[in-house]
């Protein structure tokens, strides 16, 4: 699969003038994103996610390291013609109407008429912005409407690669769900999406691969199903007497018990036989033995805590 984004040893250091110390915002980051995937870039606030994106777009300059975006160096104009960016909490020219601001961005993409108008109309329809709002100044827009304009401007040039920085933050549940669906639709069109977020349930729903960054350092990266699949097994059983449950507990596993039903959510594979023997020995019934799948939130918290996050 061709690579859309290749980052090698990217580092960004700032000098804190007041404290006379160097702050490392991004530390030797190496990462690849393949074409056509929705890639989740996860990290806490201040982890270095936005700094990384800004370097890739040429808005700020790295202290060390290199990267190629769609095969071109960072900030290359030719690459920028084929990518788009939705910043976190995007601000637009509030005196302009939704249509006019997209018209302005269309001109920056050197789109001529009537193609520009047709494209604006399509994008506004794609992001489901109420047609009555198209010709109203942006200062009267709600946060959700502004975010739709943000997505529309990011779709305007039919990009190959989209950088979305916290696209669903601060939205109400309906707008949140709608925007998440739009991102899924974008992914289905074969576009590469670099999604920076700490909305982990969203990332879990839409991304195929993720990377976790903490204090500028890459902690882990890989396919979502690999990261969330654990080496533990979940055992479920029914008609298990309390005495048997106590015996299971002595194996050193966690157990959830309710009216004779038991669930051992994270047993080591070698403990499974012992648990089954105890259940059968007490005339109970084993109903399921399942691979235990962790949530992305569990993976994220474990990874960050192991790296010394507080």
């Amino acid at each position, binding site marked *: 699969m061709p690579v859309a984004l290749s980052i090698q040893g990217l580092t960004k250091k700032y000098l804190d003038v007041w404290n006379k110390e160097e702050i490392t915002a991004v530390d030797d980051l190496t990462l690849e994103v393949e074409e056509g995937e929705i890639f989740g870039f996860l990290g806490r606030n201040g982890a270095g996610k936005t700094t990384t994106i800004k370097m890739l777009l040429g808005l700020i300059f790295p202290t060390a390291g290199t990267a190629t975006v769609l095969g071109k160096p960072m900030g290359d*104009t030719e690459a920028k013609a084929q990518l788009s*960016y939705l910043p976190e909490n995007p601000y637009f020219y509030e005196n*302009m109407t939704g249509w006019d601001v997209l018209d302005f961005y269309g*001109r*920056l*993409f*050197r789109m001529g008429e009537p193609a520009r108008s047709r494209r604006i109309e399509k994008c506004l329809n794609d992001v489901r912005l109420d047609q009555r709002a198209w010709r109203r100044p942006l200062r009267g827009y709600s946060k959700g409407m502004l975010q739709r304009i*943000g997505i529309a401007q990011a779709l305007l040039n039919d990009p190959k690669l989209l950088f979305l920085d916290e696209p669903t933050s601060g939205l109400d549940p309906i707008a949140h769900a709608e925007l998440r669906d739009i991102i899924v639709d974008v992914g289905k069109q074969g576009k590469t999406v670099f999604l920076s977020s700490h909305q982990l349930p969203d990332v879990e729903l839409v991304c195929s691969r993720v990377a976790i960054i903490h204090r500028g350092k890459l902690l882990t990266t890989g396919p979502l199903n690999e990261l969330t699949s654990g080496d533990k097994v979940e055992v479920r059983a029914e008609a298990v007497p309390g005495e048997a449950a106590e015996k299971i507990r002595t194996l050193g596993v966690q157990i959830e018990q309710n009216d004779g039903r038991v669930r051992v959510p994270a047993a080591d594979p070698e403990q499974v036989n012992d648990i089954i023997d105890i259940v059968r020995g007490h005339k109970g019934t084993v109903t399921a033995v399942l691979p235990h799948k962790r949530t992305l939130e569990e993976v994220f918290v474990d990874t960050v805590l192991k790296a010394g996050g507080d």
Partner: protein
Amino acid sequence: MVTMAIARQTLEDMLRRKILLILLIVGVGMIALGPSVGFLTPRESSAVLRSLGLAVILIAGLLITVISSIQVIPTEIERRTIYTVLSKPVQRYQFVLGKFLGGIMTVFVMIAAMGIVFLGVLFWHEKAFAPDMLKGVVMTFCQMMLLGALTIFFSTFAPPVVNFFLSFGLFVVGNLSTVTESLTSNRNPVTAILAKIVHYSIPNFGNFNMQNKLIHPEIVIKNETVFLTQNIVYAVLYSAVLLVLAILVFDKREV
């Protein structure tokens, strides 16, 4: 196309700014109300009207230029609108040029509006067109173009407050070009060297002041065409140099 798109957006944004519209309305109002002031003689009345009109255009133009040029790049960074612009296929030089042109087009529209009212008032009062005054308005615009370029240059690295004092200070010193020129031949070598540095490095804004020459017919410019052409070329070239410097600084700036 990209530079002009940015210039057009900047112009439209500026023309919606209340502070600039207030300055324009005050300027136009003062020029329009000029004839209502009582005068002793018709000649005095004409001189006062001309003097008032040119002075109002200069002061209003100065404020409009400084306000629009100081804000034009820092506001983009502060409001983060620059992210969505520079992440498009836009070169940084196109951004700086577009912002400068947008600011200067704003100044042009406003000075032109005041100039039209000024010439209209003079025509109504004197029952004759005063083409000489147009030269004064054009020179004021050239002066403001140069000031705009200077302000844009400072705005690529200095915060707006610092920029205001720098630009305004240099405008005042640059308007004293006749004084600095006379000091270049001072007996004291230190004074002479300092005066030379100031005189040749700071834009000679004073060159564009032809109000006295226009209001008092007894002051004659030897070759007016050469004088006007020289000043226009000076403004264009000096502005171009300042814009090149602004682009070089902005190219290295993180946003």
